[in-house]
């Protein structure tokens, strides 16, 4: 059971410096040295709030926070901000994902303030999947800020109380700031440089691309450790349970920056179709077990795409339950 949120102190809502407890449960879990668990919840292609609440219920008690995706794969869905507010009302801890694809700097900063006002305490700053992949291929890609600049702007809003251009805010947003990293993209040597830049820009935590190739992930992590980066940021390794061998092959060949070793594909193909989901979960649990042993990995981010039911079993089998509960400090 997640702790029922009591009455918040006033300072929680006023944001400001990081010294003030910012009300993020995810931050408390990580700062207490617990191996954190987050999961992903994709908003529906429709206006029904019940779907969001149902997905939230599947995750309640099994994770520390729920990432809500922002029109992922550039397909129009219920807004991430609205879905986060619904989860928050239901007593869950949302991580608002925001992409720079659809909003210029005015809208981004405005939504950051709105998110904080709604009590959302975690924000993941992303580029977003390119619009050509989705169902609005004729849309303009805004990309007014890139994800790095967005991180820097949010950090400035929170820590200095200013927006881009240094105009002062009446009240700073109160947010635990996250960024993504893909250890499997090219150019390999530069991935860690970019991670360092994201930390410098403002990332408090990192959620990575799905990990299937652990050797390559460890090589990236060791470069990050060598640069002292794992001391400066919390890293949550991303995992996605495979549903079928077909999905594994599709992701390997069609999803850019996704590294799925042949051995994983053979494992999925090696079991009958009706057992493949189970095999996918087993692979996922084994990955988490290995991630838990790695110095510099502070948690796991489970992206069970349209399969939120799987999260509980994965968390249970990986020994991640029950989730810890911390007071508001």
């Amino acid at each position, binding site marked *: 059971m997640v702790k029922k949120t009591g009455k918040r102190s006033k300072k929680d809502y006023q944001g400001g410096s990081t010294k003030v407890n910012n009300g993020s449960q995810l931050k408390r879990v990580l700062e207490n040295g617990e191996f954190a668990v987050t999961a992903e919840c994709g908003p529906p292609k429709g206006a029904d709030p019940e779907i969001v609440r149902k997905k939230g219920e599947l995750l309640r008690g099994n994770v520390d926070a729920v990432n809500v995706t922002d029109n992922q794969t550039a397909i129009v869905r219920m807004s991430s901000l609205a879905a986060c507010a619904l989860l928050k009302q239901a007593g869950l801890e949302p991580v608002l994902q925001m992409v720079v694809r659809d909003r210029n700097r005015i809208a981004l900063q405005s939504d950051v303030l709105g998110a904080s006002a709604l009590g959302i305490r975690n924000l993941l700053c992303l*580029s977003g999947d*390119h619009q050509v*992949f989705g169902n609005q291929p004729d849309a303009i890609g805004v990309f007014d800020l890139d*994800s790095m600049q967005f991180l820097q702007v949010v950090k400035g809003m929170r820590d200095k109380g200013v927006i881009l251009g240094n105009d002062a805010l009446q009240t700073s947003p109160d947010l635990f700031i996250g960024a993504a990293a893909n250890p499997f*993209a*090219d*150019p390999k040597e530069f991935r860690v*440089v970019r991670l360092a830049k994201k930390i410098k820009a403002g990332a408090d935590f990192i959620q990575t*691309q799905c990990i299937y190739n652990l050797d390559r992930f460890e090589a990236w992590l060791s470069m990050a450790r060598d640069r002292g980066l794992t001391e400066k940021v919390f890293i949550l390794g991303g995992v996605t349970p495979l549903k079928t061998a077909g999905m594994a092959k599709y992701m390997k060949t069609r999803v*850019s920056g996704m590294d799925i070793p042949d051995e994983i594909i053979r494992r999925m193909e090696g079991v009958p179709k009706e057992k493949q989901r189970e095999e996918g979960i087993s692979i996922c649990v084994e990955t988490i077990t290995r991630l838990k042993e790695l110095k510099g990995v502070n948690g796991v981010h489970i992206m069970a795409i349209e399969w939120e039911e799987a999260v509980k079993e994965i968390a249970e089998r990986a020994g991640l339950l029950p989730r810890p509960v911390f007071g508001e400090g």
Partner: protein
Amino acid sequence: MAFMITAEQKPVEEIREMIAPFKRILVLGCASCVAECAAGGQKETAMMASALRMAARMEDMDVLIEEMTIDRQCVEEFVIRLDDVIGSYDAVLSLGCGAGVQAVADMYQEIPVIPALNTEFLGETKGQGLWVENCLGCGDCMLYYFGGVCPLARCSKQVLNGPCGGSVDGRCEVDSEVPCAWQLIIDRLTGFNALDRLENIYPPKQWSKKQGKGPRKIIREDQQK
């Protein structure tokens, strides 16, 4: 030509729909950029006029279609040459770029000027029949910082602090035919031993220099008489 505006012809059906209400049409070519990219020069203008005449004849339509090409549709002193002939037509079909179409329209307020081309971009000629966009004309060149490769024109997400997570084997996730601009930038800067330039976080672009108050203008008093 140091730089070039590129354009492509619109589908002939779209052009025929736009010119349908008119009986006396001047097909007007431009001998500059659009001639260079084989979209609206003298040769293409002749072919366009002849195709439209043939189509009109097939449908037994009584339409006068004549052609003419001037050196530059975007320069007033060349457009003025239409003064003597423009009265004979009730529409101009321009094979100039968007600037040319508007310059002609500006000069002859009473006559519709219809675009026959889709103006594309400020292009580099890569080879025979191949033009690529490497410059957005953003008004604030940053090529020095990026080793001579523009991330605004050449990165699909216009990332100034790249590469994003979609760069694989030097290719862009959006289209495997597209080289990743950030791989090119890193390769170039590595060659110059200047990779440390990328340790900086580049600030947000000043788009006011591209999209300011209305259309951009260059005023050079030293060039004015």
